[in-house]
């Protein structure tokens, strides 16, 4: 009985410890995002501004995702386990915040958080931000996992993988113009949900492909880098084939002109359905692509 109560106390202690780390994250978050101070320091009313709720909970969900794969080994003693966890957690959430900052600087350089969320309650902006928060958390989660499994140089490997993935995803989001028929800036200004949903699927699709590529044991860094790049290149070859196959099998007519509807004040805009189509197609295709690029085990 003593053993059971003891492990329970350790778990409760760990829970408090993680809560302290989340508190640390909260304060460091508004250091990097001073404009989001209101979200974190004042009382938050989820029903007041749906866009703000999506924005905030995207990040909270991202934080949960980030810490979900952390492993705590008590075999080396209590102090070492918690010290390692603390150091890794602090570095990881710092990297997460910097990655978010970089990604929003690339994708949303034309828009301001305060204008779009607080004033305009722009849901498409919120969805794009949520996509960044969830996607980058997933990439960092896999990076931490891969680095921890390598068993040595954990912190350096986390930083290397973070840098590597941020560079790749940074280039990847520039392909949105190639893949999607939607006009990003124009539709975000129009607060069009289609662009938010399309981008959500697009970004998470890329995250799935990159996380599948980096999720392999690190031996030699050079070989690892080569393998990751080759897997991503292979994904780029497989992806359009699956996309075309899905369009053919389900007889989808992705005609943007038919998706045009009349928006507020008679301005033409795009129907939400088209955004759902694009987002879901990207996401489904990315999932199917990873089966081909990562889950086939050859005997030779």
């Amino acid at each position, binding site marked *: 009985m003593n053993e059971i109560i003891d492990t329970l106390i350790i778990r409760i202690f760990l829970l408090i410890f993680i809560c302290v780390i989340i508190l640390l994250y909260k304060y460091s978050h508004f250091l990097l995002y001073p404009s989001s101070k209101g979200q974190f320091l004042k009382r938050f009313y989820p029903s007041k501004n749906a866009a703000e709720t999506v924005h905030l909970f995207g990040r909270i969900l991202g934080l949960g995702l980030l810490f979900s794969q952390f492993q705590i080994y008590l075999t080396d003693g209590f102090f070492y386990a918690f010290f390692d966890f603390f150091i890794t957690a602090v570095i990881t959430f710092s990297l997460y915040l910097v990655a978010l900052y970089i990604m929003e600087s690339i994708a949303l350089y034309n828009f301001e958080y305060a204008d779009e969320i607080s004033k305009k309650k722009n849901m498409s902006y919120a969805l794009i931000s949520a996509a960044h928060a969830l996607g980058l958390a997933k990439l960092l989660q896999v990076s931490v996992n891969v680095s921890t499994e390598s068993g040595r140089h954990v912190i350096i490997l986390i930083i290397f993988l973070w840098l590597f993935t941020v560079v790749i995803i940074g280039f990847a989001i520039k392909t949105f113009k190639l893949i999607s028929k939607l006009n990003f800036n124009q539709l975000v200004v129009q607060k069009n949900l289609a662009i938010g949903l399309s981008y959500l699927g697009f970004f998470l699709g890329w995250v799935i492909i990159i996380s599948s590529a980096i999720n392999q044991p690190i031996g030699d860094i050079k*070989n690892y880098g*080569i393998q990751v*790049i*080759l897997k991503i*290149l*292979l994904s*780029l*070859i497989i992806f359009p084939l699956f996309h075309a196959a899905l369009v053919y099998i389900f007889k989808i007519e992705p005609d943007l002109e038919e998706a045009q509807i009349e928006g507020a004040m008679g301005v033409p805009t795009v129907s939400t359905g088209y955004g759902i189509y694009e987002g879901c197609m990207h996401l489904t295709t990315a999932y199917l692509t990873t089966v081909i690029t990562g889950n086939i085990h050859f*005997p*030779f």
Partner: protein
Amino acid sequence: MGKISLYVLLILIYLGLAKSLKTDEKRMTINGIDELKSSASLLRPPTSVLLLDSYSEGLFLKTYILRLRLVRVFSGTKDITIKTSKEFFEANKGNIGMSIFRLDEGAPSPETLPLPPGSYFLGHFTFGSWRLINSGQRIWKFHRSYRDLPEVLGWGKWRPTKTFYKKIILHKEQQLPFYGHNDEFGTEGTITKKNIRRIAEARIFKREDFLPHLKNLFSLPGNQHE
């Protein structure tokens, strides 16, 4: 059209990069006996080339692989893995454990007739001599400095007799492959099977029968298959 060109370019980049950055073992390609003859950097006469293993990789586009042992008397034995042509692979399917190539010092051209391993050394008194044993037969015994050769050649405890040697001479004159009096050598040979460990065998999955496989697939937890 632009998208198709881009896609083709992507495939070419992938193939080019995958080929040039391939990090696993870079194998040389020897498509036949003529190419083996011209591999001067590998063959330092006197050399006898033993075929240790042959297997193919791939499902649709096969790559044919041979594992060779270069028994180079004065510069050390070396095992190499090469890619080869289908013809050369098929031609040597039954020759595992055999000497498929022998190059002598000063000889104008190498011998390429499949013969039992060590045929090159038999009768060369530089390497050994015939010894009379209790049964009245004469067997080949290597000199002390070459005492490792029986192991390298995959003989195990077997030793060639003078009758065996005479048979080799006869087959050489008739240009006919020789697999031993009772086919002890070659892929199905008893001595080969005993002394040469084939990697290919370890690589091939032990394929289970279809019905047990199906039963296993649909078996309920806790039954005898668990």
